């Protein structure tokens, strides 16, 4: 009896571990995810823009957060700051050079759990041909069944990058050297 209980408990534990190490696809199709950025304009206001086209997936295990991974690929030409001429400039040689560097990639290398659902995602961002480690301050917003038979978990995160680190040296002024990223990712469990 005791042995049977132990066996059953072990089995249940094993199953739940495998059930929790789930793969999620970021719901870009339903646009429940976004890659937004903001940069100071002259130091007087924030200019907000976004990348409209990207894809990504992550693994998430709420009991073993450190084992989680996330990969995102962004189409650089989809940059959108709601201004045709500025976007053309951003796609061009002064900034993203989207013809030469059509994709920006983020690949996590480790996840550092924090408190209150907060955690840090450390990973490599490859942007404009430069690969550099960045840290995303992230937290879990919520998760559970959706009304259409699926299961979702959603997160948001922020990170700060310096344009010159990624070999973008067009002078936008002393207040505009860094770009803050604001990331939303709702994943659908596969």
């Amino acid at each position, binding site marked *: 009896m005791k042995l049977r209980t132990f066996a059953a408990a072990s089995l249940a534990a094993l199953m739940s571990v495998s059930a929790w190490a789930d793969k999620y696809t970021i719901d870009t199709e339903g646009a429940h995810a976004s890659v937004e950025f903001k940069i100071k304009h002259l130091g007087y206001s924030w200019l907000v823009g976004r990348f409209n086209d990207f894809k990504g997936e992550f693994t998430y295990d709420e009991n073993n957060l450190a084992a989680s991974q996330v990969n995102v690929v962004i189409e650089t*030409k989809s940059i*959108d700051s*709601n*201004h*045709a*001429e500025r*976007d*053309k400039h951003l*796609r061009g040689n002064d900034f993203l050079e989207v013809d030469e560097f059509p994709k920006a990639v983020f690949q996590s290398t480790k996840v550092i759990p924090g408190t209150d659902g907060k955690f840090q995602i450390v990973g490599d961002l490859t942007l404009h041909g430069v690969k550099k480690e960045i840290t995303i301050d992230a937290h879990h917003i919520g998760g559970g069944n959706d009304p259409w038979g699926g299961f979702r978990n959603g997160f948001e995160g922020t990170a700060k990058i310096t344009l010159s680190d990624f070999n973008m040296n*067009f*002078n*936008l*002024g002393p207040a505009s050297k860094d770009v803050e990223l604001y990331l939303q990712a709702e994943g659908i469990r596969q």
Partner: protein
Amino acid sequence: MKIKNTENQFGLVAISVHWIAALAVIGLFASGLYMRSLTYYDSLYQVLPYYHKSIGVILMLLILFRIVWRFINPQPKSLDTHSSLEKKGAKLAHIGLYLLMLAVMVAGYLISTAKGHGVNVFDLFEVPATLHGIAGQGDLAGMLHEYLAYGLLGLAGLHALGALKHHFIDKDRTLFRMIKGK
């Protein structure tokens, strides 16, 4: 000088439009090249594109008017001393200049309106966007705008060389007809 053309003379309107367009094309080409080299903190960074676009739209309207004017006016005949090759070449060049001017300006308009925003003309009126949101529109239109502008300037240069050849080598009245009418 008469307002309208005759069989042998250019009228005031045709001559005025010719020289205004010539100045505008040269000014637009130079400003277009120059404004792309400006740094963000240059005082002309905002001003020059504003004038470039506003003058471009005005020139577009002027050229459309000129085409209408061409059809409701007699077209002065080429001088008898011109060879038939010169006549044909000149005619082709004139058609090419019209087409290139229109194409450059349409391409420029498609850059600025690629995201559905109109073009502000001297704060007087706005040209609304029509075609927009096409994949890669801004970059494609930008490339066309640039290459067609080089083509236009090249053809305009040829056109000017032709006029100078008539003036200094043939010593005929071709150039004077575009200044004094006859």
